């Protein structure tokens, strides 16, 4: 019996891959229902046309940009400790971008027209066009950077990293500008969003990298090498806290400026968050779970100094950020234009399935990549370190 069990035993890794493939298949079914069927299967209405897939797209590309920034610390800005997480970071940056692309294609009504029309009939006054343009270049830079890191071409990695860093800023702030340049929605309009998106990318990227790195070691039941653990804990204790603090500061002024003097449109939108239909999500998920609890936990609790602590904090931040993106997209749209009550939107099962499939795509590529690609940096042993130091001394 045991022999039979051993013979047909499937490793948990393949069960995991199978589960992710099943979610992707469900996503494919949902896609077919949406694009081949004749019924409207999205919860979006003409008053709230942009739904949860847009916010999922934002969540993923924000994370990708943030990961790019964090990984640049190592081989671009020469903070050498961060080279330890460079390969994993850049790889995650690529796959989160791909998951984001999947989400936005599923949200668009006619995605098969996207590629050709963006080239044949470009509108240079449209932030969407510029965003697509920059994100595509960004993707190319990321792939070059990743290959250079894999083959240890440090100069190429550095230049590709610089290119990725600059295009990431361009692409990501343009994403903020898609919303920021819509004058019709006072809650979004203005320079706040392009700037805020760049800032929140740092939060998102740091949290995601911490979460995925620790989760990978935990799932594989391996102990985290001390150098990496120290770096990850430091990222949580210092970087994440700093970025969270700045986000809290930004939000305080966003709230005050949206309420002060009842600016039309803005006031109604902000009130929907503070004391309206979105208030539970806002206070519980965005503010408490996403910002305040991880911020004070990392800042004041000694237990947060372990990898478990930063893991938990980054998980909370990621949940908060996902809800925050959703609320950002919805809040801008639900304020009444012709008077009357708030418009309503709740995602349908089809939309949730598509969101799940975007997450599954990200995890699937990561799981396969983690197995096949050498994502771990070789940590030099003490002997090798001394030798390297001797060499540098000799050279000088």
């Amino acid at each position, binding site marked *: 019996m045991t022999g039979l069990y051993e013979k047909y035993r499937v490793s948990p890794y393949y069960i995991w891959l199978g589960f992710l493939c099943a979610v992707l298949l469900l996503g494919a079914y949902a896609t077919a229902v949406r694009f081949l069927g004749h019924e409207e299967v999205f919860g979006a209405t003409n008053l709230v*046309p942009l739904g949860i897939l847009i916010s999922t797209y934002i969540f993923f590309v924000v994370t990708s940009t943030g990961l790019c920034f964090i990984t640049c610390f190592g081989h671009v800005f020469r903070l050498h400790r961060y080279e330890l997480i460079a390969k994993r970071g850049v790889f995650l940056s690529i796959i989160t971008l791909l998951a984001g692309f999947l989400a936005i294609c599923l949200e668009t009504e006619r995605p098969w027209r996207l590629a050709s029309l963006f080239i044949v009939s470009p509108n240079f006054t449209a932030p969407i066009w510029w965003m697509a343009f920059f994100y595509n270049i960004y993707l190319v830079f990321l792939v070059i950077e990743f290959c250079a890191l894999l083959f240890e071409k440090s100069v190429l990695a550095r230049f590709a990293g610089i290119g990725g860093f600059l295009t990431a800023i361009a692409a990501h702030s343009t994403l903020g500008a*898609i919303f920021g340049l819509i004058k019709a929605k006072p809650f979004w309009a203005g320079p706040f969003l392009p700037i805020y998106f760049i800032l929140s990318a740092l939060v998102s990227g740091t949290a995601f990298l911490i979460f995925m790195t620790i989760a990978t070691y935990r799932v594989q039941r391996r102990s985290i090498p001390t150098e990496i653990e120290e770096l990850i804990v430091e990222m949580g204790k210092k970087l994440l806290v700093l970025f969270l603090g700045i986000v809290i500061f930004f939000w305080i002024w966003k709230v005050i400026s949206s309420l002060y003097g009842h600016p039309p449109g803005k006031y109604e939108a902000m009130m929907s968050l503070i004391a309206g239909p979105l208030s539970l999500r806002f206070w519980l998920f965005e503010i408490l779970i996403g910002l305040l609890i991880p911020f004070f936990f990392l800042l004041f609790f000694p237990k947060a100094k372990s990898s478990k602590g930063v893991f938990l904090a980054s998980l909370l931040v990621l949940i908060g950020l996902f809800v925050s993106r959703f609320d950002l997209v919805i809040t801008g749209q639900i304020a009444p234009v012709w008077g009357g009550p708030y418009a309503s939107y709740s995602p349908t099962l089809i939309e949730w399935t598509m969101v799940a499939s975007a997450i599954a795509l990200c995890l699937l590529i990561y799981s396969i990549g983690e197995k096949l690609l050498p994502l771990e940096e070789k940590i030099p042993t003490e002997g090798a370190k001394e030798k390297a130091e001797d060499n540098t001394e000799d050279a000088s």
Partner: protein
Amino acid sequence: MTPKRYAMVIDLNRCIGCDTCAVACKMENDVPLGVWRIWVNQKEKGTYPHVRRAYLPVLCNHCENPICVYPCPVKATYRRKEDGIVVVDPHLCVGCKICIVACPYQMRSLDPIKRVAQKCNFCVHRIEAGLRPACVEACPTMAMVFGDLNDKNGPFVRLLAERPAQRLKMSYGTYPQVYYIGKDVSLIPFEKGGSIYDKREG
């Protein structure tokens, strides 16, 4: 030949809220179920016995500065140079829905069958054939008048010169080309506690 600048005047003193314009538009343009290109906002004003129902027919304003046009990534929507009409090319639209969000009057919607953005185009096919838009043609009280602003001696420009007219949400700097005679202050958007019957929700 000088280019035309088509515009519309709606005399709210004549509007009886019969929705004929909305129905005529639906029939003329084959507008799908659940979507409208023109509708009549309604609001009850005052308390009994001094009560009145105010009407505000709304449609695409064909703005001179169309802020819904700029964010379209593929030039699927544009303002025609020859007559100032803002149109959507359904063969180019990718359905990103950004124009629907960007219109401050919420006059764009998604065609659930073609899966592209759609809106009032002043019945451009009728205008090119020398006819008037369907809503104007159908209005039983002749509350809607359609004409060319560049025809300086025409009846349309004379009407606008003789009667005080207002436009909607001028604060956005869009310079809408639909003018309202006798616009009621109670129909101004963002009015506190206001509740205007919105066809798309009812």
